[in-house]
């Protein structure tokens, strides 16, 4: 145990690096901290190094250099202690298809050495928590994608971890199911008062769940902050005003209003960036009206994380659905071969 360890910090990564086959730098010298009780998100496109980072933190992979401390324990030197405190829900469906949901939970509990009298009670509680009580005695092969994901999360809670890792918790799920999973994640967060470390390439997910986000790209952390901070770094809200003429240019007048940071005129429309859209907009309306023009259309938009991401990495996050489809079809092939 590190004596100078800050009690508020649960994960402290120091120069964490993973090089595959002596050449590919999957994770490149990253350092960050995760605070107790927060939902920390690792956001980035596929291949950015999210899963590799999680695999190192969950002691599955050994870092090439650097290390991390979880609750004060070194993930390399104290790996077995770390494993007892954490739980990892991988992006794949790892539950045994031939067993029931309940049996899967008991099996996971056995792997943690939890006595049966405790694990039986917990399994029932957890199945209820994730809304799988009625499906508890059904084989997992009959479960839908959302049910499987919930079961995976329940399995991840059986050892009462202080830190739960969720690797792409809603990968390949439809939008509705995704929202439902978010609700469950929020629910378990409250119920067990633990820290959640998740990775995702869905911006809405990071925005909706995380208290802090680290944007990772090419194995490096580009930016860390709360979703609001990341959005604010964009330079504020976007106000779009369309007036009745394009002949006159009001840009300079608008720019002189305090709070306005940028004005762009496109035909009769003005795109205005301002620190606080709601307060600045009335001032602009006033100005336009006193100049004798009529406002035809107005919109104020808060910057989305999508825009923040674009600004920070220079790229848009694509929804990479196809690769997941491939995995699923591969799974089906295997099931056929196996049977």
């Amino acid at each position, binding site marked *: 145990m590190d004596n100078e360890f800050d009690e508020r910090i649960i994960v402290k990564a120091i120069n964490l690096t993973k090089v595959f086959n002596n050449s590919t730098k999957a994770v490149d010298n990253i350092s960050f901290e995760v605070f107790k009780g927060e939902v920390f998100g690792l956001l980035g496109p596929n291949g950015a190094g999210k899963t590799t980072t999680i695999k190192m933190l969950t002691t599955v992979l050994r870092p090439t250099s650097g290390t991390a401390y979880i609750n004060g324990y070194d993930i390399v030197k104290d790996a*077995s202690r770390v494993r007892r405190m954490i739980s990892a829900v991988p992006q794949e469906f790892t539950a045994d298809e031939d067993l029931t949901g309940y049996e899967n939970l008991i099996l996971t509990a056995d792997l943690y050495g939890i006595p049966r009298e405790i694990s039986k009670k917990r399994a029932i509680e957890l199945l209820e928590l994730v809304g799988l009580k009625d499906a508890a005695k059904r084989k997992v092969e009959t479960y839908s994608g959302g049910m499987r994901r919930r079961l995976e999360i329940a399995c991840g809670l059986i050892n009462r971890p202080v830190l739960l890792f969720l690797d792409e918790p809603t990968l390949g799920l439809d939008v509705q199911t995704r929202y439902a999973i978010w609700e469950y994640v929020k629910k378990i967060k409250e119920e067990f008062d633990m820290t959640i470390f998740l990775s995702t390439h869905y911006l809405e997910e990071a925005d909706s769940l995380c208290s802090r986000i680290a944007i990772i790209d090419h194995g490096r952390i580009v930016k860390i902050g709360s979703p609001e901070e990341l959005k604010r770094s964009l330079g504020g809200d976007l106000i779009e005003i369309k007036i009745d003429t394009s002949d006159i240019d009001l840009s300079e007048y608008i720019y002189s209003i305090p709070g306005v940071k940028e004005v762009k005129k496109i035909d009769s429309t003005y795109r205005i960036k301002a620190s606080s859209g709601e307060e600045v907009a009335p001032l602009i309306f006033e100005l336009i009206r006193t100049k004798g023009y009529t406002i035809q259309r107005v919109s104020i938009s808060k910057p989305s994380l999508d825009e923040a991401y674009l600004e920070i990495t220079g790229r848009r996050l694509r929804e990479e659905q196809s690769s997941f489809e491939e995995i699923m079809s591969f799974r089906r092939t295997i099931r056929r071969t196996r049977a």
Partner: protein
Amino acid sequence: MRSEESSIRIFHGLWALTNRELKKWYKEPVFLLLSLIQPVIWLGLFGKSMNIGAIFTEQSFNLPGLNIPKQVIDEISKYALLNSFGTTDYFSFLAIGMLAFVSVFTSITTGMSIVWDRRFGILDKLLSTPIPRGTIIISKVLNGIIRSLTQSAIALIIAILLGLDLTHFSLIGILETFSALFLMTIGLGSIFVMVAIRSTSWQSQMAVMNLLNLPLTFTSNAMFPIQFMPDWLQYVAKINPVSYAIDICRQALIGSTGFASMTFEYAYLSIFAFIFSFIGILLSWKALNK
């Protein structure tokens, strides 16, 4: 700290992991039925069609101009078979060989489940739990041993039903047989788990399986006695641990004369089992600690 400071009972986890895979096998009657097919084919079709005893009958010895008495042919037949196969019944000779072949085949396939586990992310999930790395590997080997020996036991019952020579049958003989098969599968299983843990795709693992399965059998005394093999093949056969396991089984079950003493053969198999399980488990463990 709210986490469970439960000490991990190694054997608890070991059994949980082993049973997880065995369950798939014994819970599905189809799997058990399918696993019966193979020994039936080998014993019933292959074993029965290779009717070597029939070579030494009046018809095949009906040489023009010679009138060999039936008694002479019978005596020649008896001694020829006894000298070559150590028993007068080729079916029994082959049946024991098949017993071991079934065991070899099953222990080769045990590695496959690791490839699935890795592919599906189950292995990573296990690696993040406090289960010791060694337990994960040993559970795979153990699973292979249990399945192999069960398959062999089924093969033995089928062989008996199909007319295995039971004149030398004894309980001790059965125990000797299965202890030999146990030693063989522990060594083979460990090697194949080690190979599988490093293999990246199930295709390559299948290729390895197919590449090793038949050569291991053909370079042993499973189908034909060692002393009639060409010299170079004799050397290979006398290194192949499968030969030793089969030879023990034959001596123990059908009372045939072996190519070496049972004590020596047990010693050889034990050393094989020890060295290969040590290497196999150590290298698998290293692979998991990447």
